[in-house]
């Protein structure tokens, strides 16, 4: 039983990471309709940023997170400015920014590989390698840290979209770009902000997961796929969907590895199969979009 509970904690932590990646997609896709497959590479950049800050320069953890967040803000903003803004301004077809971002994905990955080499680099966890027991639940410090951080991020995101005027304007842009522009909402600012926010959230995911998997230039794509799967499962219309999808995916993954008579390598196929199944059977995800309120 304790084994099972430990698996729950571990799965919850992974699910939170996937959820954060899914949230990163959501933050960009909702207002702009642009799908950025490169969120995984953003996570990679943040992971290496954490490696440099924590392992090389050995800064305190809080400062490191702040620096990495600032870095990701810049990266997100820069990405939007260089590869997306010129296309949107020109009225290019919606496929164009997606393709440009795909190119950027490769560029970023290669730059990371150029800068840090092909070997994985260690990233220390927030509170060391100890274990924590909260009542019946037990897991590593890092797992609980991940869950805590994700809870804060998701709560903030939910609050932002549901309760603040700025968040509502994001929603407005998502629903109707032209009407939003006519209402005076600054489209390009919303786009820039959504990319910056998406980068920070993706970076957070990378930073949180890096202690477990090490910073590695190839870590991006699997993470991106897991994040996207989470998004599809949970439903791309709501913030909660991202988290729900992530948790479902992580539980399915880890429980399959632990309890199913399947070789661990094949377990890597779980998110892939789930993604394909959901795309074919229920592409809108589990959570319905919120109905318009009077």
């Amino acid at each position, binding site marked *: 039983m304790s084994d099972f509970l430990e698996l729950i904690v571990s799965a919850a932590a992974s699910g939170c990471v996937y959820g954060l990646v899914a949230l990163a997609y959501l933050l960009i896709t909702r207002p702009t309709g642009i*799908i950025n497959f490169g969120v995984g590479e953003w996570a990679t950049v943040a992971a290496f940023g954490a490696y440099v800050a924590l392992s090389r320069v050995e800064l305190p953890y809080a400062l490191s997170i702040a620096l990495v967040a600032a870095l990701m803000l810049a990266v997100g903003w820069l990405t939007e400015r260089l*590869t997306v803004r*010129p*296309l949107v301004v*020109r*009225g*290019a*077809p919606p*496929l*164009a920014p*997606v*393709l*440009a971002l*795909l*190119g*950027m*994905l*490769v*560029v*970023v*990955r*290669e*730059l990371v*590989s*150029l800068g840090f080499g092909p070997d994985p680099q260690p990233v220390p966890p927030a509170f060391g390698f100890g274990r924590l027991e909260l009542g019946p639940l037990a897991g590593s410090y890092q797992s609980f840290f991940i869950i805590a951080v994700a809870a804060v991020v998701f709560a903030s995101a939910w609050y932002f979209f549901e309760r603040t005027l700025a968040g509502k304007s994001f929603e407005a842009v998502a629903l109707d770009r032209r009407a939003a522009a006519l209402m005076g909402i600054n489209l390009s600012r919303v786009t820039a902000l959504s990319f910056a926010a998406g980068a920070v959230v993706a970076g957070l995911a990378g930073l949180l997961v890096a202690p477990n998997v090490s910073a590695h230039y190839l870590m991006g*794509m*699997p993470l991106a*796929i897991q994040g*996207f*799967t989470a998004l*599809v499962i949970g439903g791309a219309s709501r913030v909660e969907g991202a988290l729900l999808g992530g948790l479902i995916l992580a539980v399915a993954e880890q429980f399959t590895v632990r309890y199913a008579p399947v*070789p661990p*390598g*094949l377990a*890597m*196929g779980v*998110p*892939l*199969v789930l*993604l*394909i199944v959901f*795309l*074919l059977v229920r*592409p809108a995800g589990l959570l319905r979009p919120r109905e318009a309120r009077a």
Partner: protein
Amino acid sequence: MKTVLSYLAAAVALSAIAFLLGAYQTDVYRKLLLWIALAISYNFLFGISGQIAFSHFSFYGIGAYTIVILITQAGLPLPLAVLATVAVCVALALVVAIPATRLEGFYLALATLAFAQLFIVVLNEGGSITGGTGGLASYRLPEILGVRVAGPWYTVVIVVLMLATLAIVGRLDRSWFGRACRAVRDNPEAAAAMGVNVRRTKIIAYTITSALAGVAGMVYAFVDNTVNPHIFGLENAFLLLFMVIVGGSGRMAGAILGAVLLYVMPFVLSPLIGHHHALVFGIFMVLAVLFQPRGLIGLWDRWQRRRRQPPAPRPQIAKGEAVKREGLA
């Protein structure tokens, strides 16, 4: 008759080159021809039929692995193995096409991305059948009637494959089917109103192009005489997409141009970037999308047009209208 002659001439010229090359150059040349063949078929799927799929290179892998498995493990004689491999490629392409074509745009991209990764997972876990992570090696092209096709003669086989792909895709493109594919891509509602069976058109396009990729893979298997999961990863799926975009999506000449350019580029730039080829590909891709969405072939077109007629004074048109025409095909 004219086209048959030009194909024949091309076949002879391209084959003649094969006999003049050393071992290393032969390898480069063969792979160039294979990439061209892949780019041509992918261009029809992505550029003309408008299906954003990342599964193309996986079918290349399916073709390669299938023939190797049939020859080394099932012990089939070469002609039978070839027929069986083609059949498997077509069948599998159809099986994937049917659910895949129910998906649009990004969902299709995602599903095929997942399919491509799943293929790698299956290869890695395939035990002794697929050779696991190490793949399969130490096999050779079997003899037929006591003759083993090798060296420059095998390069001729690849030339024939490339030209056959060109011929097949070219014919499809210039026919009612090519128009139907473009119509479905541009406006599926209007296409259906004109009697085009949208679903069936997409399925046929996906099946034929994926099967062509599989056949190319079958030929590839005996170029390096090794197949492993790493070769057929997402890296190359992206590269194929980049080739088509940089060269000019929707145009066969564009696909060929893109394939040649992006394939040759790493060799030219290797003193600078070592083996970080992908960096160059990514940069080219971003530059192409930003500055030349019609691809390099668009530059050629413009130059041709300017040659034929001097530029007439253009009426003042709204900026938005002028740039709207420059979209990706």
